[in-house]
């Protein structure tokens, strides 16, 4: 593939923007967590694009392994975040019978 690295970065930015917009717009807690996953994925793509850019640089070719390593860490953190978030959603549903963020205004009122 001979796509310039800019295009990978722009794709990552577009995905992050969509994820951020969904995070603020949606009211369903589960969908909000999905939008967080989308943003983490965009960050991953950005890491990998930077790694590829350095690995294929004209002057100093060679592997650049920081990107893939941190991408793996991000994947693990995403899994942890999903597990804890969904456990909280289940506990919340058990107490309130809802997953809507509009119903959770105890600290505001």
């Amino acid at each position, binding site marked *: 593939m001979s796509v310039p690295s800019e295009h990978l970065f722009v794709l990552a930015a577009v995905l992050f923007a969509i994820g951020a917009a969904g995070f603020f717009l949606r009211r369903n807690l589960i969908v909000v967590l999905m939008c967080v996953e989308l943003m983490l994925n965009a960050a991953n793509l950005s890491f990998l694009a930077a790694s590829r850019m350095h690995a*294929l640089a004209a002057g100093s070719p060679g592997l650049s392994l920081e990107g893939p390593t941190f991408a793996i860490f991000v994947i693990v953190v995403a899994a942890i975040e999903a597990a804890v978030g969904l456990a909280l959603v289940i506990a919340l549903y058990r107490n309130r019978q809802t997953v809507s963020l509009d119903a959770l205004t105890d600290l505001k009122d």
Partner: protein
Amino acid sequence: MADALFYVMAVAAVLAALGVVLAKNPMQCVLSLLASFFALAVIYLLAGFQFLAAAQILVYAGAILVLFLFTIMLLNLGNPGSEDPTDVRMFSRANAGLMVVVAAALLFVAALGVRRAGPLPVAASTPKTGLDPIPALAGEMFGRYLLPFEAISVLLLATAVAVVVLAKRDRRPNEGGRT
């Protein structure tokens, strides 16, 4: 050929991501997210990250999305007609316009950064073993990044315990001291 496939997959990933944000039913959101993850995995593969593509499929599509699906089915939120009624007015307020502005600003900043960086090198030849060969990656993981690796292992263990505690039934503190 590979270039065309990249652009097709990029468009697919963006459309699927939009589907996550716009779909009413959480089940459709999960399926859109799955499509987005698969498109991204193909992009990783095209860019030369073979192990990461496999990890993306295994961990994201195989584990995380199953967790989402399981939760939606457990809470019975996926039925047609049982959509969250408050989600309907998500685009009818000023926050929708505000989010468009924020997203456009994010994209503008990203485009400005790319423009300032000048033309980035074009991939001439990706090595046959890819840009993330597993032996080299393992050497990094258990060498330079051993401490973060151990820290994240402890975090995973703590998460497993925390999730069991959180999702357990009957955690009322006023029920005779069983917490």
